[in-house]
């Protein structure tokens, strides 16, 4: 039950885009058509799903206060949490690099559709943000953290596909010249966010 609640909550209520604005840069840049948007979305789901559990374990056994106690009594007081930003971002950058190489080697077709997005993802705030939220919310075990990763990723995926679909239609509407492109996109995302607010208040 706990898992389901974390999963649903991170997709709808704590949506990375609509509630926290994470990953906005690539969200706005790559949402002009549904196909590429879906590609980027999938890549984000994938990278969050791989990096977050790794960062969870690092946080649990290396970074948080008292995390090093498995090394012996003398290490129980150490608090390395000041290193967490740098470790998280290093893990993310490294994983993205490795994933890129692996995908390129073993599945050139997937690489062609996903590959161009991978370098973008290293600095996608949604990925880093997910790790930081994981640390702040202090999930009880690896399962919960993974559920959160999956939910956040899917939430991001849904958000970008939905926006891309709207923007495709938007091309046919009459928008004031100065508002065209970026301006109206921001407002659309804002309105979508208000719609998503309807989900807050749900408890599972």
């Amino acid at each position, binding site marked *: 039950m706990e898992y389901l609640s974390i999963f649903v909550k991170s997709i709808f209520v704590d949506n990375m885009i609509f509630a926290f604005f994470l990953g906005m840069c690539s969200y706005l840049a790559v949402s002009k058509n549904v196909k590429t948007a879906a590609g980027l979305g999938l890549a984000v789901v994938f990278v969050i799903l791989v990096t977050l559990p790794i960062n969870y374990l690092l946080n649990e056994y290396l970074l948080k206060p008292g995390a090093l106690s498995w090394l012996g009594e003398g290490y129980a007081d150490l608090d390395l949490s000041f290193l967490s930003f740098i470790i998280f971002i290093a893990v993310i950058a490294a994983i993205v690099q490795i994933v890129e190489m692996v995908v390129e080697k073993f599945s050139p077709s997937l690489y062609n559709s996903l590959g161009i997005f991978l370098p973008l993802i290293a600095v996608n705030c949604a990925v880093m943000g997910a790790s930081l939220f994981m640390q702040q919310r202090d999930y009880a075990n690896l399962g919960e953290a993974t559920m959160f990763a999956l939910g956040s990723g899917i939430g991001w995926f849904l958000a970008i596909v939905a926006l891309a679909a709207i923007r495709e239609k938007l091309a046919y509407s009459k928008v004031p010249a100065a*508002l*065209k492109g970026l301006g109206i996109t921001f407002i659309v995302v804002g309105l979508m966010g208000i719609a998503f607010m309807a989900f807050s208040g749900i408890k599972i």
Partner: protein
Amino acid sequence: MDSEIWKKPLFKGNPVTVLVLGICSALAVTVQLKGACIMALSVMVVTAFSSLFASLLRNTIPNRIRIIVQLVIVALFVILVDQILKAYVYSVSKMLSVYVGLIITNCIIMGRIEAYALGNKPLDSFVDGLFNGMGYGLVLVTLAFFRELLGSGTLFGWQIIPESWYAAGYLNNGLMIMPPMALILIGCIIWIQRSIQKDLQDK
């Protein structure tokens, strides 16, 4: 020094409203002016110094691990800022929560290092970073000004809307505090900017 270095990022080439960079980490911190100001300052410090250092090191960085080295430099300054905030303005650092850490992935910083600092002299890079951070801060503070004034009736926590207005039936706009309003306001800022600078409009 070319005056374009500092003029451009503030208006014509504003990182947020024109280049659409660095929106991610910061919209959520614009509910209150105080948080927005601290965030703007933090980003300025980080962009300026990481540009400076990246530029100093630009001839030594091994090409293959370029991105990681940049990330490490940025992360170093972000952690420093985070530690200092925690020590000296604890209440604000609590309010900013994870968004301080997210400065690392703020595309403005990486973007300026890649596009400018790696090919220019340290001092120019420092100024470029500083003013790009400032251009970003400008948008942040404008947003926060409207959101706090209309959403809570205060500025920097001081009551601005007089009690008599409330007595006469004025209500704070609760929607302003909600995250989506920040996006809609940015949309409006872009609208205004592009109405003035017609050359930025999409064809």
